[in-house]
């Protein structure tokens, strides 16, 4: 399965404290309709050449809803025009801040098969919001308005919460606030990540992240029916208790071959983060087919990473099967090389050893080497 992180714009109506995107240099603010059409031509071409593959498109940004409802109508039109034989293998998702969502988007998004959103929210002041001052009050009002509209029209939604230094003071308040909003999809607690340009006032260490999770975990463990789909707790529990490993891209060990990011100007990068951080560029879809992009020689270094780590830094690690050395971009961020394990290794290992195993009494025993 191929996954496209599709960023028709890097513009955003918010100025979230931890976002790297808005700080990147970019020349094309919004993807043109011509480029949009080319994307679908390339997708169709790829799917004809790989007749067993599925193609996941995650609309991302910036803020994708800035493109306006007509843009998504156009996307659907191009998909119908160019992917008539392959559209059944195309699935769309969207990551949005929901602040711009209105009833006008419903029809076109439904046509694209988008029935749910991934979003992000923070109850703490001045973390998410527009302007230099990061006006979170105004932001939260807009978020709630957009969310209420989305729910009114039957959209499901999941949420990512980015854990920052400010979150560490009140893990329970944050946890209850967010779960009380009752997302219909999953709710992920992710650490804030920076590349180069770090923010000391909100940066956290892996140890701090582990302790944040560890404070909340006993509450979740005791009330799993009440708090469904809380990540990383659910997937870790499934992995440890049942041996089911549904790993995210960075932990899967397979990200080298399956991901691509396309920016507003058609430039391709490995994934959303690599595009935001400005490395692992694979060329432009004007000049390259998706097959060529997926076969780009730069990916071979990523492909070799598993074997190298397995023999070196990660040898004999019992968590290898659920981690595979973590996200190669974290490694590059810290070491300027992909051939190291993630600097966030402790986030998983420390949580399992310091919290999961003692609290649950369940010892993680990997069932494959």
């Amino acid at each position, binding site marked *: 399965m191929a996954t496209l992180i599709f960023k028709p714009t890097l513009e955003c109506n918010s100025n979230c404290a931890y976002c790297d995107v808005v700080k990147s240099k970019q020349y094309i603010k919004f993807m043109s309709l011509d480029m949009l059409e080319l994307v679908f031509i390339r997708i169709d071409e790829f799917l004809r050449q790989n007749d067993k593959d599925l193609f996941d498109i995650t609309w991302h940004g910036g803020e994708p809803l800035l493109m306006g409802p007509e843009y998504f109508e156009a996307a659907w039109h191009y998909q119908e025009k160019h992917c008539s034989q392959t559209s059944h293998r195309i699935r769309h998702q969207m990551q949005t801040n929901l602040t711009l969502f209105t009833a006008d988007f419903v029809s076109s998004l439904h046509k694209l098969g988008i029935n749910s959103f991934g979003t992000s929210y923070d109850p703490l002041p001045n973390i998410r919001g527009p302007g230099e001052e990061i006006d979170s009050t105004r932001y939260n009002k807009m978020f709630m308005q957009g969310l209420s509209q989305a729910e009114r029209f039957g959209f499901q939604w999941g949420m990512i919460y980015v854990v920052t230094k400010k979150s560490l003071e009140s893990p329970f308040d944050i946890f*209850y606030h967010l779960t009380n909003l009752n997302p219909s999809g999953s709710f992920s607690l992710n650490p804030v990540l920076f590349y180069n340009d770090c923010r000391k006032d909100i940066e956290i260490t892996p140890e701090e992240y582990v302790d944040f999770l560890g404070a909340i975990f006993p509450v979740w463990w005791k009330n799993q029916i009440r708090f469904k789909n809380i990540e990383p707790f659910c997937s870790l529990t499934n992995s440890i208790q049942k041996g089911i490993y549904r790993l995210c891209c960075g932990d899967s060990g397979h990200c080298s071959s399956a991901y691509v990011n396309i920016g507003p100007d058609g430039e391709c990068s490995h994934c959303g983060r690599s595009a935001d951080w400005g490395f692992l560029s694979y060329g432009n879809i004007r000049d390259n087919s998706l097959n060529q992009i997926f076969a780009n020689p730069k990916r071979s270094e990523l492909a070799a990473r598993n074997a190298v780590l397995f023999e070196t830094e990660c040898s004999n690690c019992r968590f290898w099967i659920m981690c595979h050395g973590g996200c190669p971009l974290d490694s590059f961020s810290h070491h300027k090389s992909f051939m190291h394990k993630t600097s966030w290794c402790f986030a998983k290992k420390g949580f399992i050893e310091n919290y999961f195993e003692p609290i649950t009494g369940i010892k993680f025993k990997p069932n494959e080497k």
Partner: protein
Amino acid sequence: MNPRIIVCPYNRSLFDRISNQILVVQLNDIEQIGSVAQDVSHSCNDLRCAVINWPSSLADIQFKKEWMTVPLAIYATEMGPFRFIASQLNILQQMNLRVYLPLNNPINYTELRILSSLGIASTAVFVSKEPEWEALTDLMTYAVMNYYPHAPIDPFHYVATKFKPDGYTGFSAVYFSDPTKFLHINHAGNVSLSSDDLQCGKFILNDICELDDFEIENCPDYQEALNEWRTFFIDNRKCSICQGWRVCLGRFSQFADTSLGCENFSTEFLEILEQDKMIGQKRISLWQL
């Protein structure tokens, strides 16, 4: 428009202007109980219940046999001397009746339980005075967890039957004030989302006859009412971080800033509902023929 139950005053000409609706009729006089069902039926409507605000104790009412078929909600100030209730128990137990008692009097917590144990459905009415949380918790536990059959005590029984472990379960419908289920009209035929709105002249329709063509989902006031709860989160109010939010939804918010009582109560309520749900799921249901 999705069907709503119409809460209206006892007014025959008003009934005639509505048809094929389900009505909750507010009576002025207890003697109207005898005629309300017939009047509603004659106007081609269905009576959900008749509501009477009785200004003294339940025991002061002389219940009549002919009232037995009328679905009734009686708001009383208290139960009154038990022996007077007992003398009418035969009729009361056969009536289609819910007794609403306010929680401004400590004895009413006990009286709700007494009525329920004798097979008379009862409802606790929250007032501006802060509830006695411990007594309320005891009452709630009895309502939900008591193993011996008894009549429902609302709002606890209502919440328990509709409880979704991973969702919200509010209970404003118990007091006829849920805009997804009820509309309120006055003698003039003006339509509002709640009795408070009706009293202060906030109408969504000027006349009941506009109801048939009305798309309530597109009404801004309706959407505002549905989403009012989100202000707790926007404003980062204490209720937004309360463990018991899912079953309170801000109902006790006026006490939240000065007392831990509502949080403790709501949290325990939630835990008891979850426990009750789990026990219910473990019960083996008989295979069907």
